[in-house]
């Protein structure tokens, strides 16, 4: 093994991985792809929260666990939203897409925040009711993914 080979590989890896996160977006197609991935991950967070809320209603999981699950998904959804929101839309169509998706995500994160607060307060019985809008929101996200993937 040549000396410095390992360091070089590591540097290349880091460079590639970092580029993958923050490269500039130049066309609608690329922007649309990013929008779909974002919608997918927010949908995953929403579904995780629904599942957890359902388990809470049936007394199938205990409070500390549920509050961790719910605060993690809230953080995930918020993180995806921030990353997507920070990308400059390359054209008018992209800007429209951005408005549409962010509005949807906002509604999801609002529900997720309510869920997290209720779980922290130990109000496990209320979780399922709070999570109810996530069913419809999740479907909308799925349709968004389908239309733009």
């Amino acid at each position: 093994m040549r000396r410095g080979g390992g360091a070089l590989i590591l540097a290349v890896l880091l460079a590639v991985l970092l580029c993958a996160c923050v490269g500039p977006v130049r066309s609608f197609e690329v922007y649309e792809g990013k929008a779909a991935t974002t919608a997918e991950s927010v949908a995953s967070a929403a579904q995780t929260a629904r599942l957890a809320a359902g388990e809470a209603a049936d007394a199938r999981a205990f409070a500390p666990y549920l509050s961790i699950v719910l605060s993690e998904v809230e953080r995930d959804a918020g993180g995806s939203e921030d990353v997507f929101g920070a990308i400059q839309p390359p054209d008018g169509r992209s800007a429209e897409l951005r408005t549409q998706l962010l509005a949807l995500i906002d509604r999801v994160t609002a529900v997720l925040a309510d869920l997290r607060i209720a779980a922290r307060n130990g109000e496990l019985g209320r979780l399922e009711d709070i999570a109810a809008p996530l069913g419809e929101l999740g479907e909308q996200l799925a349709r968004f993914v389908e239309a733009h993937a």
Partner: protein
Amino acid sequence: MKRFTEITLGILTAIGGFVDIGDLVANAETGARFRMGLAWAVVVGVVGIVVYAEMAGRVAAVSGRPVFDLVRERLGARVALANLLASFFINFLTLAAEIAGVALALELASSVNYLLWIPLVAALVWLVLWRGSFVPMERVFGLLGLALVVFGVALWHLHPEGLLASAMHPGPPTNESWGTYLFFAVALFGATMTPYEVFFFSSGAVEERWTRRDLNVERANVLIGFPLGGALSLLLMGTTATVLAPRGITVEHLSQVGLPVALALGKVGLAVLLVGIFAATFGAALETALSGGYTVSQYFGWQWGKFVRPNKAPRFHLVVLLATGLGGLLMLTAVDPIKVTEYSIVLAAAALPLTYFPILIVANDRDYLGDRVNGRVTNAIATVYLGLLVVVATATIPLMIMTKGGA
């Protein structure tokens, strides 16, 4: 029962290797994204680790030489040092991640932030390694880790449909690319054959003072322990394939591993699962911390091992102490432990042949093994796997770059 406790070395090695913090999340994610479409990669990996761990254990029992002795003896001081640096670095990252993994399990049980648990966990890991002796340690964590059988019970309750069918039809689902599929396959295979398993198992054979007479026990450890570990990871994959995949949930956190189990078995199942995760990650932390000490000591020829009192193996204990302490510190920076293990598995893949090739050579050496050298069948399988390891070692990093880490 006595027979059963004789195979806890194999069980702990496999649990620490197959269902540690990185693998728990990686297997859950694989099930959620590919259902059982990558189960074959685990099976292929289990056969490989069985073949090579058996050779390593046999050499250790008959000649008293653990794996890193063989690496040094066959590759020479220079190449073995390159392997040592790579292996130790990977080991260290994994150890750090396992410490965080134990803390994450405690967080799920208590909702106290995992960062607060890390110093306590690191101290506890070190204390067990300083004061505890090898066999009780291996029994406690190996047997407690079996609580993860709860994945199987959960799967039974969930009445899964189409799991076998998805296992029989490999290939990426429509929304995933072949590149990503292959990256996951290579990562799963690499994870089942992580080198610290053979470092730990062969050194454990010396710790337990196995000799030529214990070869049956050695074989039983390998043939039961590793397939059991593999089965646990497949069962976990099955639970997420059944519950999370249809809902479009992708797995990013340890917490999500609990959702299918809670759905199937409720609070009791979840509690058992958390015990299992605690034991498996704690066991993996012990395994990687010891492996770090074993590899360094065996490269330099220092006295190592839990079979002597600490002041008889001072440099070994110094390495273990430093690795555990620095690992805890690394995790206090709040880097994502799951990302750390996932990348360390990929980096480990590149060093795989440098560890397994020397084992294969020495397992054929009459000077070490006398009449206990490999038979033809073992050699044929092992040669095929060596080729596979070389392919995996060269393919992993390009695949990782191509697929942006399987994103």
